């Protein structure tokens, strides 16, 4: 705490008057910028309490007669066409599609990442170095053509539009975060495992009871990041899970409907509803996210 205070003071007491004026101007600029990042959501929130007519005539003013009609309609089973046959989905179904996919994809991919990272970090076996190098090289080479072959593969084995297909495709171990988790395991002293082995612990027991708890901070950070990534994913569910729209895909369907019918205020309500869970999530894990990603220098 004292160190932090010293850090803070050391950066400000040496400033000249001119530099303080520049800092003041930058502060105002950053404040305007920060407000611009939240203004669109204020605009959405305000207009979500209007009816279509009021929004049409006065989109920038406060609602004169606030109404919850858009939210009520949305939660009373309002359906939007998926564009696949006669398929339709409610906002509840979109929520379920998003949450079920994000949770299962996060859990499976993190589990396999931990398994692979741990074994490659802690066990000597033929091919270990080759595998590790191959994974590093694969993360450097741009694979912009792979999406078409992936689509062909998923189409050939008839997994497009299936939950299991999405999980199989996204449960990869060697994706973002693998190298970090590998280095987390690498940094844990092997002496802990040796002591456990003397006590008769199996390799599985050592992995689950000793190593995972010791690397839990790093694992938790990447679990949160991966969950956010899967939750916010748009293009992959759009291509590979079109008949079960997630919130992201569903919102684009609602927007297309709003362009045709003019029901923009309902779209605004849906957008607000889609933001709320992620804001709650952010409020809970904010400290973890900011301290481990930004301050830790991950990019």
């Amino acid at each position, binding site marked *: 705490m004292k160190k932090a205070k010293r850090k803070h003071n050391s950066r400000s007491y040496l400033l000249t008057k001119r530099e303080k004026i520049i800092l003041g101007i930058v502060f105002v600029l950053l404040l305007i910028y920060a407000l611009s990042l*939240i203004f669109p959501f204020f605009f959405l929130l305000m207009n979500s309490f209007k009816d279509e007519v009021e929004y049409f005539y006065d989109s920038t003013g406060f609602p004169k007669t606030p109404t919850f009609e858009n939210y009520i309609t949305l939660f009373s089973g309002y359906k939007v066409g998926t564009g696949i046959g006669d398929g339709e989905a409610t906002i509840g179904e979109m929520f379920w599609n998003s949450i079920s996919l994000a949770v299962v994809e996060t859990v499976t991919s993190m589990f396999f990442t931990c398994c692979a990272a741990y074994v490659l970090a802690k066990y000597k076996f033929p091919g270990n170095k080759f595998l590790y190098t191959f994974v590093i090289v694969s993360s450097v080479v741009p694979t912009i053509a792979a999406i078409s072959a992936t689509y062909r593969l998923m189409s050939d084995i008839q997994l497009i539009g299936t939950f299991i297909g999405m999980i199989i495709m996204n449960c990869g171990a060697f994706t973002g975060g693998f190298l970090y988790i590998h280095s987390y395991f690498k940094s844990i002293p092997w002496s802990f495992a040796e002591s456990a082995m003397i006590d008769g612990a199996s*390799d599985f027991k050592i992995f689950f009871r000793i190593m995972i708890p010791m690397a839990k901070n790093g694992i938790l950070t990447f679990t949160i990041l991966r969950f956010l990534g899967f939750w916010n994913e748009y293009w992959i569910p759009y291509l590979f899970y079109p008949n079960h729209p997630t919130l992201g895909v569903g919102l684009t369907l609602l927007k297309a409907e709003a362009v045709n019918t003019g029901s923009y205020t309902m779209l605004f309500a849906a957008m607000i509803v889609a933001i709320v869970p992620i804001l709650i999530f952010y409020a809970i894990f904010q400290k973890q996210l900011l301290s481990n990603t930004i301050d830790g220098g991950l990019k």
Partner: protein
Amino acid sequence: MNVQVLNKKKKKKINVRRALFIAGMLAIPLIQFGIFFVYVNINSILLTFRVVDPITGTYGWGLDNYQDFFYRFTEYPDYKDAIFNSLMFGLNDLLLVLISLVLAYFFFKRIPGTQFFRIIFFLPSIISIVIYTMAYSLMFKAGSGPINVLITSLGGEEPDWLLDENLARMLVMIYCLWVGTGYNILIFGGAMANINTEVIEYAKLDGVGMFRELFQVILPMIWPTLSVAFIGSVTTVFTLFIQVKLIVGDSFGTPRTIAFLINDNVMSNQEKAATIGIIFTVVATPVILLVRKLIDYVGKKFGY
């Protein structure tokens, strides 16, 4: 003798168990990697040689997809436009890095409200790109978007943001700057916060001003973080498309990029998508490696 045999047996048993453990832990990850990385990437090369007869649906092998690509590249403007747009977005990303770097410097100086800014600047990384792009484009919606309302209330004429390719490109570029600046400020600010304060203090006592402090003291110390951002700008040239798709959509004035052309054909013509992808991978790989080398060289040459 018996004890030795017993120990040998026990050791063998442990080794077998360990081998099974390693195999068990790696089996599924390796199978998944083998299918969705190795097989898929090999198949994406094979797809470029696959020629489908549009009438019979049968296929053969040949160089037709490459011929089509180069014919279209020389005879039609769309591929050249895509390269131009992609380069513009890459340059925009470079501009984003530079703006963020300067702002991060002031952020590092601990301006008031740092915690508030941190929370807000991280929002675009938390909230879905679908929601952010949608909210952004609603600001420019004809008749009701606040930006358009402001322009008309000042006596101006509402621009056709999405119908004019230049305006649409500018709209996407501004969006990338808008959502990216805050996050980059936090990343660069985080790297700057790790610098030993004594170094900054000594420089200050030597009478170093803000400009020299940023470029001669701080920049060398955050060079690794900055180099990742520069490489990211090059990668953007070959990967950016979703922002265009979500903000402008798919219309006459859409500023299509290389990745847009690939992804636009994924569902309907995988051979064409793979061919565009492979050709640009061949271009992208040496470019990215060259930029990496160049950044390393600059870093070493100037003591970064």
